[in-house]
């Protein structure tokens, strides 16, 4: 049996029908067509499916979609405004922080959660913020540098 769900996705009201027990990741991708969210493990382990729910980072693959009714969800698709990339996206590009790119959506959202709460993070803060997100390409250093770069120029725009 499908259940109707309504929530806010990147600032817009959306509605979908979800299978009983469906996770948020599958509803975002399959019912709402937001393919910016990636699925990696469906076990809550790799972090690539990270989205923000009411501003807090959450693993969409182990989040019951029904539990998100009425909440505000942010994905990578909502980061840019028109032609302008989010400072984090620019910094990831400039620091070559994405190689295969599979972890990037989760890394960006984990980083956004950090900078929204702490605009001036230390390196230790950054490491903790992305410690639940696995990257097998970069060795993490370019990602850490990109997040610190975005923070240092964060006065330009905070989404």
């Amino acid at each position, binding site marked *: *049996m499908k*259940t109707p769900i309504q929530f806010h996705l990147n600032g817009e009201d959306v509605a979908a029908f979800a*299978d*009983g*027990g*469906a*996770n948020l990741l599958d509803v975002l991708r399959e019912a709402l067509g937001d393919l910016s969210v990636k699925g990696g493990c*469906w*076990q*809550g382990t790799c*972090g690539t499916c*990270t989205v923000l*729910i009411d501003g*807090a*980072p*959450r*693993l969409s*693959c*182990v*989040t*019951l979609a*029904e*539990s998100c009714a009425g909440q505000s969800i942010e994905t990578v698709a909502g980061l840019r405004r028109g032609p302008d990339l989010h400072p984090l996206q620019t910094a990831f590009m400039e620091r070559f922080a994405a190689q295969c790119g599979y972890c990037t959506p989760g890394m960006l959202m*984990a980083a956004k*959660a*950090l900078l929204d709460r702490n605009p001036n993070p230390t390196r230790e803060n950054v*490491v*903790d*913020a*992305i*410690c*639940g*997100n696995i990257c097998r390409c970069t060795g993490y250093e370019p990602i850490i540098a990109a997040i610190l770069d975005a923070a240092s120029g964060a006065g330009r725009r905070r989404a």
Partner: protein
Amino acid sequence: MTVTVKTFARLTDAAGALSTERGARFLAGGTLVMRVVNEADPTITTLVRSTDPSFLNVAVSAGRIELGAGVTMAAILAERELAFLHPVARGVGGPAVREAATVGGNLFAPSPYGDFAAALLALDATLILAGGHGQRELPLEEFLGRRDRGVSLVASVAFRRPANEAFRFAKVSRVHPKGLSILSIAAHLPLASSRVSGARIAYGAMSRTAVRAKAAERALEGRSLDAAGIAPALAVAADGTAPVDDAIASAWWRREILPVHLRRLLLATGQG
């Protein structure tokens, strides 16, 4: 395969649904149960949830602390009165996991997960269980011994507030800052005239569930926390444990390093 989701405003009603439906599982943060649902486990036919506000309640007084079973690790980290538990909560996954992982869920986490349960065991916590006919209490140690045989819904966890610096915790993992436990150690070490009086030590990942180090506790009684005083406890540190081989460490390795980390924890100062 789809499952039925039932949401109840009261924990007692949720407990009633759990007890009457064979394939029902309670869903709190989802970090454990949704993994199984994603794998289409046919034994789960219903997910039971509750929006009862008491499930998320944090009650801190001078002598007693009660945490709703739905309180998340992130909520614990946001509560200054629970600073002694911050190292434990911070060791549970990354930020996204900590936003979802709950106190109650950790009690059911299979080894090598379940470090928070070890901390609660060292604090001599009592579980408040919600049943269809009201609430009852159960010592955590008793619960851990029979958790796989089915129990009522855990509504909250209560324990006495430890004295300053009496509670210590260490998590040993290969990956920092977040990694699965090779082992974890939680210790409540009340002192009387600089001597240990009534120690409780619990290990995570040293048995199928969190387990007390009763031999080490006895060996510490009346001793001072210095190298000579703790030596007898270190000699029996692994007594009563039954670690397993897994991808994180072998049982042999866990036993070998346990006294090393127990020593460091017992000799550490300024924790808590």
